[in-house]
């Protein structure tokens, strides 16, 4: 019988930290996934949904490869299954065949395994989800897609026991062409959501396990939940379909700033073992060029960026002094710093923003933003400093 909890005891409240710390560590883990334990959990989830275990369980290094490879595997599965049981697959067999399979008695055909539980993604998972969606909605890197297909076809062949020399499989594994990718992409647009976030959904598991383990909450759903929990403790994303499932490794890099936002200024903020990566500065989405080779940005690139946060990061990393010079920014006022005797200049940029460019006592140039109604260097300095102070020295 389900139990209802109306209030927490002091002892129960005192255990918040235990669950918080355990699941934060799980969510931020960069250890390699335990695919074997995750597969056990995955099969348990199918059982809980009254579905037969998937015939193929693919393993990938990243969430991106997992959803794309999972969908590809799902499309190609009937072909490989036909080959495995000796069916003569003609050359006209399309890769777009919808997988068919017998359902277990009592299965709900409208309910996918991934929809069995409430979704409650972590902040990092939100970033991953959008990056996956953006990647395959954009003109994807075809080499990346080919790599994923090669990995998928190899695993399909191995798990389905297909004779790799069979002409139909050779055709299938001979590489993915643009036409096939177009169809696959359409399918992915529909099917990619059939995933669960694994360790990146740790906040949700912290919530449920706390009530289960610290408060002795009872509910019939907890039996099914335990299988899903096993997945979350041992792997990253898991993509579900009737006959084919795919499990992702955890990330190999996950870096955040003090506010918990994804952040790294000299590499990816989040990366997986197949090279897929998210680039972020204080949670703002950037790209590899902005981080690794910011000097190669063009003024047009910087001006065309419609994300104000990212535009600011772009210019910061390009170098404000260089940007103001290269972009032909307008000089509004110039003066000499009272304390250091160094020159300073107020610039107006292409979009009406203003920068006071000064020389720091350490020999660096800083371009500090000031409001657009500031008209002189002196006003800019006043805006930057605490009100009413009298600067007598600087270092």
């Amino acid at each position: 019988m389900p139990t209802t909890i109306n209030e927490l005891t002091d002892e129960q409240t005192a255990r918040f930290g235990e669950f918080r710390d355990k699941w934060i560590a799980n969510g931020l883990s960069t250890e390699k996934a335990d695919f074997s334990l995750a597969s056990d959990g995955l099969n348990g989830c199918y059982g809980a949904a009254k579905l037969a275990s998937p015939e193929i369980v693919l393993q990938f290094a990243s969430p991106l490869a997992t959803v794309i490879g999972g969908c590809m595997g799902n499309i190609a599965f009937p072909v490989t299954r036909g080959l495995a049981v000796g069916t003569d697959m003609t050359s006209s067999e399309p890769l777009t065949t919808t997988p068919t399979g017998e359902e277990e008695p009592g299965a709900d055909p409208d309910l996918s395994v991934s929809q069995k539980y409430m979704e409650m993604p972590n902040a990092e998972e939100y970033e991953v989800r959008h990056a996956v969606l953006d990647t395959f909605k954009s003109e994807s890197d075809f080499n990346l897609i080919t790599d994923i297909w090669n990995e998928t076809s190899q695993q399909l062949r191995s798990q389905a026991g297909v004779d790799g020399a069979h002409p139909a499989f050779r055709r299938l594994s001979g590489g993915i062409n643009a036409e096939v990718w177009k169809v696959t992409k359409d399918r992915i647009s529909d099917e990619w959501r059939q995933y669960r976030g694994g360790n990146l959904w740790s906040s949700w598991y912290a919530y449920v396990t706390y009530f289960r383990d610290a408060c002795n909450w009872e509910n019939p759903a907890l039996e099914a939940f335990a299988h899903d929990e096993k997945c979350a403790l041992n792997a990253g994303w898991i993509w579900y379909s009737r006959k084919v499932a795919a499990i992702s490794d955890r990330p190999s890099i996950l870096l955040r700033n003090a506010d918990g936002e994804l952040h790294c200024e000299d590499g990816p903020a989040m990366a997986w073992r197949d090279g897929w990566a998210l680039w972020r500065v204080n949670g703002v989405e950037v790209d590899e060029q902005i981080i690794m080779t910011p000097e190669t940005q063009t003024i047009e690139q910087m001006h065309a960026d419609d994300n104000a946060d990212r535009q600011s990061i772009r210019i910061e990393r390009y170098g404000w002094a260089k940007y103001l010079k290269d972009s032909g920014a307008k000089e509004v006022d110039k003066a000499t710093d009272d304390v250091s005797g160094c020159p300073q200049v107020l610039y107006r940029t292409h979009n009406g923003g203003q920068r006071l460019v000064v020389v720091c006592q350490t020999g660096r140039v800083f371009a500090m933003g000031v409001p657009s109604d500031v008209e002189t260097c002196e006003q800019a300095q006043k805006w930057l400093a605490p009100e009413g102070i009298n600067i007598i020295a600087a270092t």
Partner: protein
Amino acid sequence: MKTIDSITECAAQIHRGEHSEVKPGMSVRMSEAAAPQDSIRQGDLYLTVALSVPEGYIKASKPNVQLVPGNTKGARHCLDSLEGVTMYYPPGFETAGDSWDAMEGPVLELSKERKVLHPTHGHVTIPAGFTVGCTYQREWDQEQRRERRNAD
């Protein structure tokens, strides 16, 4: 020569140690004659003489030598010691930790002379007997970013 070029040249001179007035890492001492509101700027930290601890400030339960929140090199404005220092924090400062984003920082009552150290800027020596408030330079980009986030 464009002004921006004169600025980068000035910076290069300082960096090479050839500037007549400014030397990188040059230490500064607060004069014993300093009056309230007199301030020494150490990078983006202002150390300003105060008459007293402002109302509402709370005596730090766990005073920290680091005066600027954050884990970056630039945030490492640190006292050489807590000896002879009574530290007060604005409300919420201690719990906010590194995510503190107001301009006001700790206020120090010094019964002994102390130095504020920094990895790239020069040290600032503050004589005993002063009450000194720490304030941070305003950051337009940060304020704009916060406004954009609030508007989302």
